[in-house]
């Protein structure tokens, strides 16, 4: 085979000689002075447009009134619109100008860059291997397993300080941080006898005010402390955490349509049931309820919960039912919680229990 190729090549070379690199075809701007000047003007014009946009940006910033009582143009906030368009134009025209410059006027060489082998030279590789082998031989690591194994062991053990130090940086997710009411993943601010109040306005609710088909977005009264209820004021992150964990949806379902879970027979008040508003999948707040089916649908990933059936999952990626808040009525006739939620609200985590409805009964109420 090897001696055939040169012959063939010799023949084809004779028939069709190597043409070499084709002669360079120049751009009109390289050979035509008029075209060159035109391209020059184009590029300068684009840079000029950019400058105009920049000037207009400053003018718009000074003259147009932003904000709620500001100028309006075509139903859009005039200030934002003008600032965005002019600054965008200023940057865009510089970019277009540079590209046009490069395409029409900058040097037009064709460059050939040869490939180089990535491997080191044969001598270098041999020398390195020889040095490594000499090292292995002289240290005697193959002949002295005691030393080798104790070294491996001590190096592996060096991971322990890292684990201990990093572990001590913070608590595990299920551990309680701080000593305020409802801290940690397993508890919320709901307690035995705490009133259910309307979200935003914070007023307590009587069962007679809840009609069939009503959907209440509610909170515990601890979120809205007043002089009357005498509850401590919550502030800052503590308030936000408490509010987001304790949010509930409450609705009245005709008693004959309600299927209370095992051990949950007395958790409703004449068909009024309350569930955590936090999806058990990844914790989005849910209040997209279909009145006719009692299906509560999470807008994030379409998990659907049947509120007439203990909040069981009927569709979607959620792995657990919505935690239900046991309800009762206090002596003043307002709706109250019988206890905190009997299970953690929100998304699952490693350490939480996996009890289904029925495995957690009233015994868990405290």
């Amino acid at each position, binding site marked *: 085979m090897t001696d055939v190729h040169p012959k063939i090549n010799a023949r084809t070379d004779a028939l069709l000689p190597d043409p070499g690199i084709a002669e360079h*075809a*120049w*751009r*009109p701007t*390289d*050979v*035509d*002075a*008029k075209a060159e000047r035109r391209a020059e003007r184009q590029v300068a014009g684009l840079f000029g447009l950019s400058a105009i946009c920049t000037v207009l940006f400053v003018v718009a910033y000074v003259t147009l009134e932003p904000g709620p009582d500001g100028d*309006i143009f075509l*139903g*859009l*906030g005039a200030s*934002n*619109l003008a600032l*965005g368009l002019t600054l965008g134009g200023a940057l865009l025209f510089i970019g277009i100008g540079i*590209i046009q410059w490069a*395409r*029409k006027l900058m040097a037009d060489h064709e460059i050939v860059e040869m490939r180089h082998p990535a491997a080191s030279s044969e001598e270098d590789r041999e020398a390195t291997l020889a040095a490594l082998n000499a090292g292995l031989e002289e240290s005697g690591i193959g002949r002295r397993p005691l030393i080798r194994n104790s070294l491996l062991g001590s190096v592996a053990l060096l991971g322990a300080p890292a684990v201990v130090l990093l572990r001590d940086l913070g608590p595990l997710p299920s551990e309680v941080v701080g000593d305020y009411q409802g801290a940690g993943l397993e508890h919320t601010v709901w307690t035995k006898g705490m009133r259910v109040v*309307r*979200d*935003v*306005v914070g007023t307590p*609710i*009587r069962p*007679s*005010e*809840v*009609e*069939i*088909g*009503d*959907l*209440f*977005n509610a909170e515990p009264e601890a979120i809205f402390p007043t002089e009357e209820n005498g509850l401590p004021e919550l502030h800052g992150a503590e308030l936000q955490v408490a509010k987001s964990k304790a949010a509930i949806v409450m*609705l009245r379902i005709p008693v004959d349509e309600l299927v209370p879970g095992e051990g949950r027979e007395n958790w409703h008040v004449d068909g009024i049931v309350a569930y955590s508003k936090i999806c058990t999948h990844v914790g989005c707040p*849910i*209040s*997209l*309820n*279909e*009145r*006719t*089916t009692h*299906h509560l*649908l999470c*807008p994030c990933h379409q998990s*659907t919960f049947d509120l007439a059936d203990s909040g069981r999952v009927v569709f979607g990626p959620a792995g657990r039912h919505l935690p239900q808040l046991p309800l009762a009525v206090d002596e003043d006739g307002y709706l109250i919680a019988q206890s905190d939620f009997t299970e953690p609200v929100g998304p699952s985590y490693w350490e939480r229990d996996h009890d289904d409805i029925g495995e957690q009964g009233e015994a868990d109420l405290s």
Partner: protein
Amino acid sequence: MRLLNRSAASISRHRRRRGAGLVLLLMGLLLSGGLYAAFSPSSTADDARTQAEMVENGRRLFLTGCASCHGQNAEGLTTINGQMIGPSLVGVGAAAVDFQVGTGRMPMAFPGVQAPEKPEVYNEEEVADLAAYVASLAPGPAIPSEEDYSTEGMSEEEKEAAIVRGGQIFLTNCTACHNFTGAGGAMPHGGYAPSLLETDPKHIYEAMLTGPQSMDVFSNGNIPPEAKKDVIAYIESMREQPGYGGFGLGGLGPVSEGAFAWIAGIGTMVGFAVWIAAHTTRSQKKKGHAA
């Protein structure tokens, strides 16, 4: 004669619509009903109609226009295997009728998950008669009066305060279905929550009171009447609000914005990339032979 003219104008306006046949049929029925009503001695005086006359006229309209789905006594109809044809209207109240018929949602053109808004079939008087009839069946929410929902008489500061309060209530109770901008959104099984940006304040109030289709009820025990007015003030403020961030793209969030970013944004960038990498035009001329 006036009634005839009105019907004729209405027919010519709706002649080319898709539901024209149905509307025409209903118009015919209404016309005959109307003629009957005009010649029957009980309802000659329009402005001094008694409650009983309104109920009676409403019942007649109901039997022609509504009873085929809702039953002859508004008791609701189901098929043999329990599928609902039309729900019972006992106890839904005048507000529900005023909302459903007053926005053209009822009578429905065909059964389905969604009763879309369309041009009204009945005039104001007939809607009032139907509402009076349905309200006479059992107590239910009444049609709100103008001072319940109108934000007209409010001072600038009162309105400002109402918008702030209403905004919080809207964001807590309404955005799940109707979107932060009130533009509406998708619901299960092909339904949708309609946009609130064109809706009449009275109809917003009635929808909260009665919970049309699969919407929850926000009764006066749930959202008090003054808070309902705040919500309406907030929705009205959203209508007047210009798009500070540029075009809203329907306010539908990631779907329309993502489509725009992928098609227009990335499309433009691909265009620039093609332009940058494309060969420039070449000349046949040699250097030094400039023309």
